[in-house]
């Protein structure tokens, strides 16, 4: 039995559990809100542990009496057809993001039906996962049957949305070297609204165009108006934007409406966030840094290289956790010519043993 890795605090919980599952190393997480008024794991974290139990086979989770620490011994990644209610504390993406990292290495094809909130202003929305994260997965060679279907929308606070994520496992990833940022050739987006006037979506588009049209005429924002049972239980609207470069770089930004915000506010904020992301540069945006870094490490024994903009706090902790689980550190070279960072690492050649070579 390998040594148990220990971590403290409730933050970065998901990534540690996922890395534990992939590397097969048991973890103990301690001091989860131990000084808090409401100590221990929260509801959505329990739900995440539940989901992890469902997608794996033979995992053992021992939670202490007070809930402030637990031990996780990962089992094999099983996959298959799974349905999970994500609750309404956190959006579906909170659960889906880590699953995307597991799915390529499972035994059976993943068909994951998740219910809950599809877009909130905390996590990346399911639209961004579909339009940005999945294409990046394809770059690493995970391209069979990879799909995210948004069948119902659910805005906070009551949710009621439903998505289906499917993915075929692979035996091994492809190494990726991606350092040419290129230049932005077009902007795509999705403006969605549920249980509000259908005109809202058009107002979102108008306001985003007012800011982005000065740069580029090729802007197409799809207006996605949901009706009836497909529109969830709460009113809501959001705009997600993706800038594509001529080298297939995808940079994303999005904003969901918070109470009191007009569609114009949301549209402008989303556009400004996109411009911010474009200014940071790099070949992957802030939201997808972690996925790319993880896949680079799991790739075959070859040099992987990716250009990123600014590293986020989440990514920095991710780099540290990657090192504790896989013992791999990245070479981090700042490129002063355009203020980006080159991340280089050697893949460990992770192989999905469940999948036969074809």
């Amino acid at each position: 039995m390998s040594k148990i890795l220990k971590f403290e605090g409730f933050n970065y919980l998901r990534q540690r559990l996922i890395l534990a599952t992939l590397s097969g190393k048991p973890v103990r997480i301690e001091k989860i809100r131990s000084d808090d008024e409401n100590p221990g794991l929260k509801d959505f974290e329990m739900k995440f542990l539940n989901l992890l139990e469902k997608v794996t086979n033979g995992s053992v989770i021992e939670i202490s009496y007070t809930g402030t620490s637990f031990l996780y011994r990962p089992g094999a990644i099983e996959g298959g057809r799974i349905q999970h209610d994500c609750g309404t504390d956190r959006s579906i993406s909170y659960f889906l993001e880590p699953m995307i990292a597991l799915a390529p290495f499972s035994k059976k094809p993943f068909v994951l039906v998740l219910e809950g909130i599809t877009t909130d202003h905390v996590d990346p929305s399911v639209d961004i996962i579909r339009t940005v994260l999945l294409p990046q997965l394809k770059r690493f060679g995970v391209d069979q049957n990879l799909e995210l279907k948004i069948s119902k929308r659910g805005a906070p606070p009551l949710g009621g949305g439903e998505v289906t994520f499917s993915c075929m496992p692979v035996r091994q990833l492809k190494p990726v070297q991606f350092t040419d940022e290129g230049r932005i050739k077009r902007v795509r987006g999705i403006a969605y609204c549920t249980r509000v006037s259908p005109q809202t979506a058009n107002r979102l588009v108008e306001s985003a165009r007012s800011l982005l049209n000065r740069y580029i005429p090729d802007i197409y924002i799809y207006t996605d108006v949901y009706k009836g049972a497909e529109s969830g239980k709460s009113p809501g609207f959001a705009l997600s934007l993706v800038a594509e470069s001529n080298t297939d770089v995808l940079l994303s930004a999005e904003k969901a409406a918070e109470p009191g915000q007009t569609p114009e506010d949301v549209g402008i904020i989303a556009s400004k966030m996109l411009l911010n992301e474009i200014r940071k540069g790099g070949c992957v945006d802030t939201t997808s840094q972690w996925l790319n870094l993880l896949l680079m490490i799991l790739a075959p024994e070859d040099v992987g290289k990716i250009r990123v903009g600014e590293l986020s706090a989440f990514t920095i902790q991710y780099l540290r956790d990657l090192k504790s689980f896989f013992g791999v550190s990245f070479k981090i070279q700042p490129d002063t010519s355009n203020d980006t960072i080159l991340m280089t690492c050697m893949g460990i050649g992770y192989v999905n043993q469940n999948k036969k070579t074809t």
Partner: protein
Amino acid sequence: ASDMFASHRRTNLMSLIYNELDLSPEDIVAGNYGDDAENGSDAEHEEEEEFLKLNREELNTTDAIDSSRDPIDAEELEEWDDEETLDSIRNRFITGDINA
């Protein structure tokens, strides 16, 4: 000067991330780490350290959000009301001038 600061910051990034494990990721992003001793007396430095400690405690107690998305920085967004900032990224688009 800000360029120099930025380059200095960048070169140390790797050791900051992998060697200085006491530094929280938030501090690294914000540029709050102890190498500013050269421009300030010791007392000031200590004071600052205390400030940082407090800050970190705060971070641990408040419900920090476990999300891959960066929190929205209102100040950063305000910059985009300025024409100059808007023009500064024009060369990142294929419609812009490559030499600009």
